[in-house]
């Protein structure tokens, strides 16, 4: 039964992938699109098959920075959201500045990142953090503020303190919102990492996917470029799936959004 369900879930996207890839291959061949504009999927796969060790090393470097950035976003974002939810005065005073994270162009602060953190992992992880923290703050805050007022009254009536209300009522009821924020942050953390690597990444063996993308572009290697982009996308997808799974495990027993 479970196997049947798995196939029903996995088969449609895999079929779409195969059809789209085959169509792209056919169209690029038929129109003779030059390699420098768009490589054929087969040449990208061929590149991946020929350089598995290099690409895996790059994936490892990028994944490490993306995971550090993502977990930092999750922890710092939630702490900030809890602080903001504490009183409407702090919220009014500080929330506009949280939006800063949403709008800051990483390229503008790249020199600061490099000077403060030095090039490489730390600077890249901070870039991932800056890019991915806002959805965590915004969604966590929305969740904390939409606690059922009747339940809050009930907790108060039974003499529950501030911390008890936070731990036993507000955070659990905000969990679906938090999971949504983390889902968005998972993809953004990968984007923030790759962009960070464009700007403050370290070159050399095991260089991140972003560094590889820039080099491949400079040297006109579109097969390598698309291979690196594809792997970065898969990393984003894997992180998104992991957050989804965690959300499902947390919520399946009691929340409508994860029951089917």
């Amino acid at each position: 039964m479970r196997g049947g369900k798995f196939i029903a879930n996995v088969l449609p996207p895999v079929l779409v992938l195969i059809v789209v890839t085959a169509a792209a291959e056919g169209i690029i061949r038929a129109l003779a699109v030059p390699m420098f504009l768009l490589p054929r999927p087969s040449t990208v796969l061929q590149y991946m098959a020929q350089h598995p060790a290099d690409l895996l090393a790059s994936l490892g470097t990028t994944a490490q920075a993306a995971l550090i950035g993502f977990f930092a976003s999750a922890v710092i974002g939630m702490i900030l959201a809890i602080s903001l939810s504490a009183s409407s005065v702090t919220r009014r005073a500080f929330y506009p500045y949280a939006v800063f994270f949403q709008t800051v162009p990483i390229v503008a602060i790249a020199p600061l990142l490099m000077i403060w953190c030095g090039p490489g992992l730390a600077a890249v992880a901070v870039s991932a953090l800056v890019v991915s923290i806002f959805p965590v703050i915004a969604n966590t805050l929305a969740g904390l503020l939409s606690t059922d007022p009747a339940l809050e009254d009930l907790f108060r009536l039974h003499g529950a303190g501030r911390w008890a209300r936070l731990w036993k009522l507000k955070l659990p009821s905000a969990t679906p919102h938090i999971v949504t924020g983390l889902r968005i942050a998972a993809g953004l953390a990968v984007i923030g990492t790759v962009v960070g690597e464009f700007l403050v990444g370290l070159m050399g063996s095991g260089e991140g996917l972003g560094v590889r993308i820039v080099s491949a572009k400079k040297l006109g290697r579109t097969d390598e470029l698309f291979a690196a982009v594809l792997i970065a996308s898969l990393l984003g997808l894997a992180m998104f799936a992991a957050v989804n799974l965690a959300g499902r495990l947390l919520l399946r027993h009691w929340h409508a959004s994860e029951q089917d």
Partner: protein
Amino acid sequence: MCKTIALICLSVLLVAGCNRRNAQSLELTLDWKPEPEFGGFYAAQLGGHFTKHGLNVVIKPAGEGADTWQLVATGKTDFATTSADQVLIARRSGADIMTVFAVYQTFPQGIMVHKARGFSSIKDVFTHDGTLLAEDNSWLRLLHKKLGPAKVKIATYSGGIAEFLARPDYSQQCFVTSEPILARHRGSDPQTFLIADEGFNPYTTVVICKADLWRTNPARVRAMVAACREGWRAYLDDPNPANAAMHGLNPDMDLQTFTEAAAAQKPLIQTDKPLGTMTADRWNALADQLVDLGVIDNSIHGQDCFVNP
């Protein structure tokens, strides 16, 4: 209703206008902003040299983004500037482009270090601690191959000189005509080593067009090259008028910097041969180097990449 229709018509016209180029005019797309490295092209326009040769040339500066050779190969522009190693990479990628004029006879790319470090060559940069900001380019690969494993940390370069100014242990890539002058103006103590001195010397700020244009309309290409040569002659003799014009288009760079850069680049442009001419020996030597570095394969030949119209 009428207003809506009129608006739609207007937008369609605007979009159509964007795509249509005047058949009589030629576009020259630069691979950076108006700076002294393009001075001769602006001088050709100011001095009427394009018009004299029957051409109506529009100069378009560009920034980061698509490589200019891709714009030429796909017919989005008639002429563009790039560097010789990019021409070889372009031809390997299937772009049928031709080089017709070379501004820099010596590669203006260098590595800028703080003088206080007491380095005497690029080898010193590679064999000491610190950080080098550079783009992964053919020349960086050559330096790696030549100088062996680097002790210096190499990080991606995203433009500007902010990091260099802030950190005494940082070195960075530069155009000898640009960043060192800027750094000096900001109170720094830069010292520059040319990549060309390490044996990598591609022609730079070369003018390219579709090889097809050269085959089907060589007169037009000859006219363009003659006008560029006259423009560069005029710029080398007196850069001030073109500098003023470029400063108007690129006010971020002050006139003093324009003047200093124009003086700094002169020996890299002027040789005993006519301005802009190239030799098959140098093109073949560059192609051999790129083959050796694995950047291109040996199906690409240097002598096929250029003409001296």
